[in-house]
């Protein structure tokens, strides 16, 4: 103990949110918000450097009593699974604020910055919380600012989209709360006290039916967040109507919270059920991959297209997670980061196009390459990263996931690979329609290329895509121990399951028969 890094990381944005409210002038507001998003970024970079690779335990952990009556503690800690998602969050929030200050958000910037920073606190808290109650608090806390971001600064049917987003998420999360409570009470029987601390809850003895229902409670909440097919229907609306920064955070970080929930809570708490449900979830993931890709292909709206591509990409992540082997899970983790960078980048670029043309309809574009070559080049790189071109980050993740899925159920990999092909297809086709060919609309001739601020927003993303594509080692070594620990829980459960099955078989066979076999 003794270090307050994580607490600082979580609450500096909230402090910043409150201070931003005191600012009067627009430029002061944006400057303050940017500075208060830089601070957590700096802390998370420092923690990345300080993070001891090869260690599975929670690092920089802090634990203080909060509600002793319920055994609830303020317990935060960081491991190889949360480290990178924290980094992704701090990076994307900083870039989103930097981008939004450049003209994307013009009305009520004070409230906008307030909600962005509050959102950061919610996201970081949910990623770092080890206590389930604390996790739930942050999990809900990130919902509210996002609701306001979509509802106030969104486009089109923003109120509808925001409400749909909240109600969908709430159905899942409130049932998860019931599951959390049930689990804590079940665990209190052998713990002798009520506790919501994750380490205390591992290995809680549960009947198979209880474990199934509890897993379902957690899984529903996370699956809605991911979102997995068929509970994805909130996503296209929310992503499309959200302001650019909202879409970036929603796609870049928030969807990962669902995947993270599976890795952190649903799977290690109920490994036996997770193994049993593995094929089902892999099947749903594959449906999502193919469905998302097919629907993306026919979208006339750029943003909606990217939104559906997220359904497809997150399908890959879920496929890797439920392969439940090292390659699959590491690939999934890697792919989460990739998707955050590439989809975040795509949403930013679409936002920049929208600022210039006030439309996102693909049919309105064509030949943009000629008027804004730099933007086109950057779009190309981000898109290729999203497709998974070797040399860029997307390839590493997809490759690992396919490998993991192949080792588990080879047919799954066979089906999923069609998603990669479809992904390349719709992305390249879109690229062609937007950027290549002759300029068909006169307005497209005169639009301005990227501003210095926009280049500053995109450059870090491009650098990270290249870096992660060429040199994944520093990331993988930090992930490995935590992933291994997670999988060891699963394997132990698997071994227990196998032993039980063998025993049951031995009992079923008559002794005479076994002699006869001999």
């Amino acid at each position, binding site marked *: 103990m003794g270090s307050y890094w994580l607490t600082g990381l979580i609450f500096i944005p909230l402090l910043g949110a409150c201070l931003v409210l005191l600012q009067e002038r627009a430029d002061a507001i944006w400057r303050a918000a940017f500075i208060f998003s830089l601070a957590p970024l700096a802390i998370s970079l420092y923690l990345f450097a300080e993070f001891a690779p090869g260690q599975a335990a929670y690092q920089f952990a802090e634990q203080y009593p909060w509600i002793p*009556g319920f055994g609830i503690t303020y317990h935060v800690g960081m491991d190889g699974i949360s480290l990178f998602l924290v980094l992704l969050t701090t990076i994307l929030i900083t870039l989103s604020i930097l981008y939004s200050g450049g003209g994307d958000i013009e009305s009520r910037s004070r409230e906008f910055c307030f909600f962005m920073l509050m959102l950061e606190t919610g996201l970081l808290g949910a990623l770092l919380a080890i206590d389930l109650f604390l996790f739930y608090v942050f999990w809900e*806390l990130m919902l509210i600012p996002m609701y306001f971001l979509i509802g106030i600064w969104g486009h089109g049917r923003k109120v509808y989209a925001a409400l749909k987003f909240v109600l969908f998420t709430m159905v899942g999360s409130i049932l998860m709360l019931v599951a959390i409570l049930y689990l804590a009470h079940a665990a209190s029987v052998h713990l002798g006290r009520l506790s919501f601390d994750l380490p205390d809850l591992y290995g809680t003895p549960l009947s198979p039916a209880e474990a199934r229902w509890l897993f379902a409670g957690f899984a529903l909440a996370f699956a809605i967040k991911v979102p997995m097919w068929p509970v994805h229907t909130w996503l296209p609306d929310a992503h499309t109507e959200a302001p650019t920064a909202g879409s970036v955070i929603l796609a870049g970080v928030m969807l990962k919270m669902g995947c993270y929930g599976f890795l952190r809570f649903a799977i290690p708490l109920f490994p036996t059920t997770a193994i049993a449900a593995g094929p089902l979830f892999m099947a749903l993931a594959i449906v999502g991959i193919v469905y998302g890709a097919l629907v993306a292909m026919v979208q006339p709206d750029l943003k909606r297209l990217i939104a559906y591509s997220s359904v497809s990409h997150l399908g890959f992540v879920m496929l890797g997670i439920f392969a439940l082997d090292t390659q699959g899970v590491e690939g999934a983790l890697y792919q989460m980061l990739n998707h955050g960078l590439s989809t975040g980048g795509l949403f930013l670029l679409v936002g920049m196009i929208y600022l210039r043309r006030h439309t996102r309809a693909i049919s309105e574009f064509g030949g943009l390459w000629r008027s804004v070559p730099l933007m086109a080049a950057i779009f190309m790189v981000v898109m290729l990263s999203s497709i998974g071109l070797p040399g860029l980050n997307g390839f590493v993740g997809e490759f690992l996931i396919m490998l993991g899925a192949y080792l588990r159920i080879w047919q799954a990999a066979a089906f999923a690979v069609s998603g990669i092909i479809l992904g390349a297809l719709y992305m390249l086709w879109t690229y062609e329609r937007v950027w290549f060919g002759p300029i068909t609309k006169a307005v497209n001739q005169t639009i301005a290329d990227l501003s210095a601020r926009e280049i500053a927003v995109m450059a870090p993303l491009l650098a990270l895509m290249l870096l992660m594509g060429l040199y994944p080692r520093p990331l993988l070594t930090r992930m490995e121990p935590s992933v291994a620990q997670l999988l060891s829980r699963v394997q132990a459960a698997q071994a227990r399951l196998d032993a039980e099955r063998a025993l049951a078989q031995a009992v079923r066979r008559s002794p005479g028969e076994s002699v006869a076999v001999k």
Partner: protein
Amino acid sequence: MSEFNSGALDFSWPSVLPLIVVAIVAVAVLMVGVFADDDESVGLGMLSIGGLALAFVLALATLGQSARAFSGSILLDNFAIYFELAILISAFLTVLMSLEYVGDLHLPGAEYYSLILFATLGMMLLATAGDLIVIFLGLETMSIAVYALAGFRRGDPRSIEASLKYFILGAFSTGFLLYGIALIYGATGTVRLDRIRAAISGPMAAGPIAHSPLMLLGLGLMLIGFGFKVAAVPFHMWTPDVYEGAPTPVTAFMAVGVKIAAFAGFLRIFMVYLGAAGAEWTWVLWVLAALTMTAGNAIALVQTNIKRMLAYSAIAHAGYLLVGMTAAGNAAGGAILYYLLGYAFTSMGAFAVVAALGRGDAPHERIADYRGLARRQPGLAAAMALFMLSLTGVPPLAGFVGKFYLFSAALSQGLVWLVIIAALNSVISAYYYISVIVAMYMDRGGAEDVRMRGRPALFATVAIAVVGVVLIGLYPQPFMAAASNAFASATSVPPIHAASLLP
């Protein structure tokens, strides 16, 4: 043991001192009012606030004591004190939010404040009652004062309707209660709660009394009587009209004070004392809870008037509390007490915002009137958003921790399905609570511009409620400890020597 078998009244002044203070101040307000101008109502309000504060301090000073007084008809334990404090807080906030309201509408201040104080007196009596007669007395003192308060805007037909409706249905429900009391007296030969318990479950219990038709019918009738007061479905019909028609601070007082007090009596009878006879009643409470939550939330969805919406929301919250009553046990009792406290601040705050938006000639009670409030009154809108989120049950606010506590208690008793129903109900409720936020933050411009004048007392009420909602949610431990301690103090009455019970 003498206090149990002596026929004489055993006076215990400290146990009733807060009540006496409230009664004296109520009379004093009335008397001063005779000599004061109508425009001096603020002074009367301050006098009431002073009296309530004094009663609060006196009640706080008796914390930790445990005594029976007046032949056991008054109980002084932490349960009673906890409820007294909660009632005094809600009365205090009601008076505070009334200061400007009463002046704006030129209501007669003396009558208004003294009626609030008399109602408070009745509520406190209900919280300290040790026998059924005192419970009835408290309930009537409270109700009659509130009937009059509901009709205080004499010029407004809706207010008259509210008063009349509340009076007729209230009297009707009191009839049920009284009849139930009579039957229980018939079954057990006593009105004292501890003796009734001993008669049905103590060592000297005559076995069949607990299950005798007389007893069960009596309990059922009392359940209906309390069902009316806490606005449980299907006894809720009066609520929306009365809440809508009554002056807004009175509505707040009804939604919070009356509800808290009614639950004090309800809990004392059904959870603390007659739990033994209630075991076979669990399913009734189960059904009541499920119905109340679901109907309250479902009907709230389609309301366009904010006071009606909050009325149905109050019904739904009674449903959540009934989940706790269904669960029974000390954990559930503590959860209910804690929940009530959080609910008190949240609901008071919400009604204070409603009152702040209204003016004499334009009440601005449609949800549509809240459009664009975030631009005109960012502070007020933010506070209202906070209250709505707390009512929805969003962490880390008081409403969330209350639900968490309640669900936890209910789950530990195995009420999984009821908790799931309650949980899904919170999602339904999110829809209509959020619609207020949508109006305030996302819709442009109101039908008419709501201009605010300086209303320091109303703003103070809102500010106190905000602090309460956040504090009780973020730092719940002391409040939880107080709540569970209070409930435990009511159930851990030392066993009564059997012989002393015989007449």
